């Protein structure tokens, strides 16, 4: 089970069963298909590190997706 949480959105957590590891961009596409929600600019974080589109996502991973805001 991979858990993807869209922070500060109505979407909340999405859980996906991944039989094999997938690229993060593919995982994100699954989330979009499941929820109909397309994040704009975002920062994805797994265990305190940024996840890039080309990173592999494996069973058990938990990823938080934040809107890419900034301070002012």
């Amino acid at each position, binding site marked *: 089970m991979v858990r993807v949480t869209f922070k500060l959105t109505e979407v909340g957590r999405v859980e996906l069963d991944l039989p094999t590891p997938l690229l993060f961009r593919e995982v994100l596409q699954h989330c979009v298909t499941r929820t109909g929600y397309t994040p704009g600019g975002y920062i994805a974080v797994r265990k305190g590190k*940024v996840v890039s589109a080309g990173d592999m996502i494996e069973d058990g991973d938990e990823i938080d997706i934040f809107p*890419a805001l900034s301070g002012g």
Partner: protein
Amino acid sequence: MFSLLRINTATGETRTEKHTSKDFLLGGRTLSSRLVSREVEATCDALGKKNKLFFCTGALAGTATSSANRLSIGGKSPLTGGIKESNAGGIVGSRMAEQGLRCIVLEDAPAGESGWRVVVIGKDGVKLLDGAFLAGKGVYEKSDLLTAQFGKDAGCITVGPAAEKLLLASGIACSDPHGVCSRYAGRGGLGAVMASKRVIAMVILADGKQKSDFVNKEQFKEESRRVVKMLKDNPVSALFTKYGTAAMVDICQSLRVLPTKNFRHGTMEGAEKINAQTMYDTIKARGGEGKTQHACMLPCAIQCSNVYPDQEGKLLCSPIEYETMALMGSNLCLKNLDTIATMNRIANDAGVDTLDCGAAIAVAMEAGLAEFGDDQAAIGMMEEIRNLSPLGRILGSGCKVAAKVLGVRHAPHVLGQAIPAYEPRGTKGMAMTYLSSPMGADHTFGFTLRDEENPLTKEGKIGLSKKFQVIGSRMDAMGMCNFVRYAVRHDMSPLLNLIKAYYDVDITATEFDDFVKETLRIEHQFNTDAGITALDYRFSETFYDEAQPETGEKMDVTDEESAQARQW
């Protein structure tokens, strides 16, 4: 034709000049930094008569364009010793535009113990009135007194008691749309510069009759509507509307760059108690005067500001920004939004920068003057600043001075200006930006964090920082709100089309970016001329020697690398 109003604060003489150059057309930081560079002797005493203080509107000020009324204030900074541009929202830009003014400059300084003055600018000219009735009062009371005398629609600019005593972290407060002087050009100590000229307030009356003279009004309207649609459609801008900048608490906690315990750590247990969701829920639950969205200037389609109410629903502070939530919250190990809001209110009343004073209080806590996490002690230190006690004056001079006086080596600043709310060892892109800003540590100067694939490495960060130095500086360059940049990041043509429709002046995207880069060159040259060297663009040595516990990272950006990031 753009008007520049010169006011000699020593003699009371005033003079209006007319200009036609593109510097004046663009206004904002493009203009303020050029005027500082041309007219201020770089080696002068920032609090002496040779310094000048420039107030500039932007290219689209006074029009119906969203988020276009930032006021850019420039001069030599007493905090950094270099050039400074600090900008604020509010209504002053609109009032200046209605008076037909692109720039107001305060020059010279009265000798000795001259009395305070209020500069009043209206359709009938400029008056210098006795300002004694404002002396020693907090900014909120000053604001009320100014409103009572000049009306709530007047655009007022004032300073707090901290500036009256020339404290280095003092800012300049500008009227918001409700007539309250709560919108700050907070950074760099420009409040002290204004006070050094014995000007305690400046008022732009709401009797200006100047209308925007569009070359192509219909096209301007169309392009203006397009900008609003872009802002509303942009998912990032739209989220600013709901949560404001406070959303950064969770992001920085997750990336382990949330300043905690005087920048010793990058995470705080219990950070969710001060995050955007908690703030949003608190404001909604308390109701009353609280607002989760609020415009700092009119018009604005983003409305990222907020009004934080007390437990009875009365206004406690507006706005609370992420930077303050971190520097007056997590960095002091405080987990109570009411405490942060109270400190922010006191800072606004004293007229000091929340970042520099928050950082200074953390330094004082590290020095053992209070325990981290002690809410009442933190509020007490803000009261010391407002009351101008000896300790308060030290804290109100920023974290560099506080660290020197209190014997703390881990002083979080660059060029004397406190590091904003991104722990630099955990984000080397932001570190590069801090080290390359001519203004001292400044996050808005080149916000890399959202685009760093690996924030922990310095590889590629010179280029990344420089890319965002340009993107970040574009909005300042023409007096737009920085958050418009999300909508025009890849295509500036909507804003350049507005300039074309307004003035019938073609500025290509390349030419515009050349202006931005030239501004950076000018600003760095000023600093060099002022005696600032490459060795000054460093963090305190502890950032290089001691690893941040959560990431294991030390600062590893070299002098040569940061120098490259300052080359334009």
